[in-house]
C-alpha cells in the first residue's frame, strides 16, 4: 500500500469520527412536555425549546418578572405545541427581548417545577418591518 493510501484512510477515519461525534453531541429542538418527561426520567441534559413570549390581546408581552434586582428574570413562553411554561433565566434580560418574534431557550427542568434556561437565543423581527412608535 502506498503512503498516500494510508494517509487517505486516516483522514477519512478522522472525518467520520468528527461527524459521528457531532451527531452524538448534538442537541434537539423539542417541547416543554418532552423536557419534563426527560427531567422525570432523571435526564438533566440541556435541550432547546422553541416558542414565543406570551402576549395579551393588544400584542403586549406579558409575564416577564424581574427578580433579583433585574439581573435575573423569569418569563412565560408558549412552545410550538401550545404549552405555556415559566422559564427562569439567571442573567440580565437580553437586548431586544420583548421585541423578539421567536425565542429559543436552552436548558432543562432542574427542579422539576421550573424550566431553567442556561442560554436564550432570540429571533428579532427585521428592522424594516418593525412598527416602533416614534
Amino acid at each position, binding site marked *: 500500500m502506498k503512503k498516500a493510501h494510508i494517509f487517505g484512510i486516516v483522514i477519512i477515519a478522522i472525518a467520520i469520527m468528527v461527524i459521528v461525534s457531532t451527531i452524538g453531541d448534538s442537541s*434537539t429542538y423539542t417541547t416543554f412536555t418532552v423536557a419534563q418527561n426527560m427531567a422525570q426520567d432523571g435526564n438533566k441534559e440541556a435541550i432547546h425549546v422553541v416558542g414565543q413570549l406570551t402576549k395579551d390581546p393588544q400584542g403586549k408581552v406579558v409575564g416577564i418578572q424581574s427578580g433579583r434586582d433585574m439581573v435575573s428574570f423569569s418569563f412565560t413562553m408558549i412552545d410550538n405545541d401550545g404549552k405555556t411554561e415559566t422559564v427562569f433565566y439567571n442573567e440580565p434580560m437580553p437586548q431586544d427581548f420583548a421585541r*423578539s418574534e421567536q425565542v429559543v431557550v436552552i436548558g432543562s427542568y432542574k427542579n422539576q417545577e421550573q424550566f431553567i434556561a442556561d442560554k436564550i437565543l432570540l429571533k428579532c423581527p427585521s428592522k424594516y418591518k418593525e412598527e416602533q*412608535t416614534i
Partner: protein
Amino acid sequence: MINTFIGNLGHFLTVFAFITSLVATFAYFKATNANELKKNEWLKNGRWAFSLHTLSIVGVFATLFAIVSGNYFEYHYAWSHSSIHLPWYYMLSAMWEGQEGSFLIWMVWNALLGMVLIFTNKSWEGPLMAVFALVQAYLASMILGTVIGNMQIGMSPFALMRDAMDAPIFQSNPDFIPEDGSGLNPLLQSYWMVIHPPILFLGFATTLIPFAYAVAALWTKRYRDWVRPALPWTLFSAAILGLGILLGAYWAYETLNFGGYWNWDPVENASYVPWLVLVAAIHTMIVFKKNHTALKSSLGLCIAGFVLIVYSTFLTRSGILGNASVHSFTDLGLSGQLLIYLAAFTLGGFGIFLYRWKDLPVEQDEPSVYSREFWIFIGATTLCLMGFQVIIPTSIPVWNAIVEAFGGISNVALPTDQVAFYSKFQLWFAVAIALLSGTGQFFYWKKMDSKKLWDALTVPFLITLVSSGAIILLYPVAQLSYIALLTAAVYCLSANGTILFNLIRKSPKLSGGAVTHIGMALMLIGILFSAGYSNVVSLNQSGMPIFKDAADEKFDQENIVLWINRNRPMENYQLNYKGRRLEVMGMPNYVDHNLLSTTGNERKRVAKTELAYDGKTYFNQGDTVEVHPENIYFEVDYTDQKGEKFTLYPRAQVNPNMGMVISPDIKRGFNRDLYTHVTAFITPDQEAEWSAAKSFEAKMGAQFIVNDFVCRFDSLITLPSVGGMSLGPNDVAVQAKIQIFDSERSYFAEPIFLIKGNQVGKIPEVIEDLGIKLSLANIKPEEGIFVFEAQTTQKDYIVLKALEKPFINVLWIGTLLVMIGFGIATNRRYREFKNLRDRNAINDSKKVTAKTEI
C-alpha cells in the same frame, strides 16, 4: 425640510457602481479571451470602468457617512443606527452596525485592492479583474434596493424613514423628521468596534485575491505562474483576517460578560474556518513553489477560502442561524440573493477547477517521509480537518433547512455546551499542529535524513523536556490533554526558537515562518492557561445565600455582596465598594454621582461642588455638565496583601431601548488578569421601599442616628429662591445642612423647609448610597428646635463576580508575534514577486527592441 438630494445622490452612485462593475466584468472578460491586438483596447475599457466603479463606491460610502454623521434622521439608516449624542468615531461603528454598511465597507476594500492589483500586476490584469469586478457586481446588488417585478434586489441604505416604516405619523405628516435616532447598540460603543469590523472586512476582501488568482490560473492555463504573485497576498490575507478575528475576541473579552474571549458561537466559527483554510493554502503554496507538487491542493484551498467567506456571509446574514446563535440576526429579505451568490461562486470556482482537473500537471513522485513537503502537507491537512470539525456542527441549521426544504422534519440543534464540544477536538488538533510545525521547520531549512534529524532535534527535545516538565510539576498541570498541549506548544516554541536563533544573524528576512510559529505556540500556551485555568476568586465564604429567592447554588457560591464603604476580603484582596460613578464629558475620571444634582434633562447635571482631578479644576460649583446617564460605573477599591491599591470600575448600562448590559473591568497583571463584573445591583428603575418616617428633634450642632449612621445638624441658611421659583415678601425658605458620617467619608444632606402663602412644603434630600431620606418637617423658633423626619431603605450594594485569567498576556504577545511573522513573510514573498515581475518586464522590452532592430 427633508433632504432628499443626499439620499438620491447615494442611490445614484450605488446604481452607477453596480453598472460600472458589470461593464468592467464584461471588458475584462473580453480582454482575457481576446487576441493580442484587441486585448489592450479591452483592458483599457476595463480599467476605466473599474476606476469609475471605485470612485463611485467610495462616493457611496462618503454619502452614507455624511447622512449618519450629519444626523439626517429622515433617513432610516441614520435613525436606526445613530443618535445626536454619538461622538464621530462611534458614527463609524454605527456605519458597520447595519448589514448594508458592512457590505459597503467590504466593497470599498475590494475596490481599493482591485486598484492596487491593476497597478502592480499588469500581466494578470484581465482574468484577475474580471473575477474582482464580478464579485463587486454581486456585492453592489446587495445594496441596490431596486424592485423589478415582484423581486426586491438588495436593500438600499438610503431609504427614507417614511418609505421604510409604516408609522402613522408619516401619513399625517410626510415631512416628519424624528428629532433623534434610536441610537447605537451600547455593546458596540467601544473603540474596538470602531476598528474590528473594517479590519475583519479587509480580511474578507483579501481572501478574494488568492481565489481570483486560482480562477485566473485555471482560466488561462497558467498553472505554474500564479502562486508567486498570489502568495504574498495570501499571507497578507491570513494576517489581516486573523487580526480581525482576534480584535473581535478582544472586544468580547472587554465588553461582554461571559468571562472569555471565544465562545464557539456559529458567528465566530464562520470566520475561523476560512482562516484555517487560508493558512493551509499558504503551506501548500510554499510546497508548490519549491518543487511544483501540491498544485491541486493549492488551487482547491485558495478557492475554498473565498467560498467559505461567502458561506459565512450567508450563514450570518440570511437569518438561518436565528435559532442557533446568541447574535440576533435579522433577515433583510436578502437570503435568496445570498443563496444565489453562494451557489454562483461555489459552482463557478469549483466548476472551473474540475473542468481543468485532467489538464493540470501531475507530479508522480511520492514524497519521502524525510522531505519537508511531506510534513508541510500533513500540517495543511490537519488545518483542514480542524476547519472541518468546526464547520460540520456549525452547519447544523443548514442541514435542518435542507431537510425541511425537501419536506422532511429535522430538529437537530447545536451541542449545548459548545465550548466543551469544540475544545475536546480542537485541543488535539492543536497538539498535532504544534508538533508538526516544530518538526517541519527543520525539514524546511535542511535536507534531512534520519540521523541529521535526530541531531537537530536533540537540543529542542531537551529544552522541552526540562521546561515543560518543570511547568507541569510546579503549576501544576494535571489533566492529560493539557499536559499534551503544553508539551507540544513548548516543543514548537523551542524548535522554532532554535531555527530563529540561527536565522536571525544570517538572513532575518527569511524568519517569517519561525516567528509566526513561535507566536502560534505562545498563543496555544496563553489559551491553555487563561481558559483552562480560569478560576473564580469571588467565593462567598459567609455560608449565607445572597438572595432569598436564589434559584441556583452556584450563584451563591461564586458571588460576593459588597456593601457601600465596607471592607470585604476576597482571596488575596480587601475590597471596598465606594459607590456609583458617572462619566462627565471633559473630565478624565469618573465622578461621584453624589456631587451632581439632577436637572429636568437626563443628560445634564449641575455640579454641587468644584469638580477637580489631580489638582486641576475642570468645573466650578453650579456649572452644568453633560453626562452619559445610561452608564453606571461601580467604583471598587482593591488592596492586595502588600498594601498596594488599585481601583476597578465595572460597568452597567441601563438603556431603555436595548435593555441591560453588564461590562467587566479588568486589572491587567503581568502573569494574570483579574476580571470582574457586577452580577446584581439596585437598578435606577427600582422603587425603593421606604420605612415609616421617624422624627428627631435637634438643636443646631446636635447629633442623631439614622440607619446606623451618625448625623450632625451643622447649620441653616435662608434661601432667596427655591428651584427657580421666586418667593414673596411673606414667604420663607430655609435649608438645613446635615453631615452624615460613614466609616471613611461623609455625605451632606440639605433638606428644605418652605412656607409659601399659607402652605408649608418640605423638600427632602435622599442619600441613595446610605439609603436615607431626610426632611426638615418643622421648626419651633421659640425653643430653637428643629424637627427632622428620616426614612430608611436598603443602602447601596453590588454583587460582584471576579475571575482570574492566568497568562492571558502570553496569548496577546503570541498574537502580536504571529502578525509580525506574517508581515515578514508577506514582505519577503512580495519582493520575490516584484523582482521576477521587473525582470520579466526588462526581458519583454528587450524582446521588443530586438524585434524592431530586425
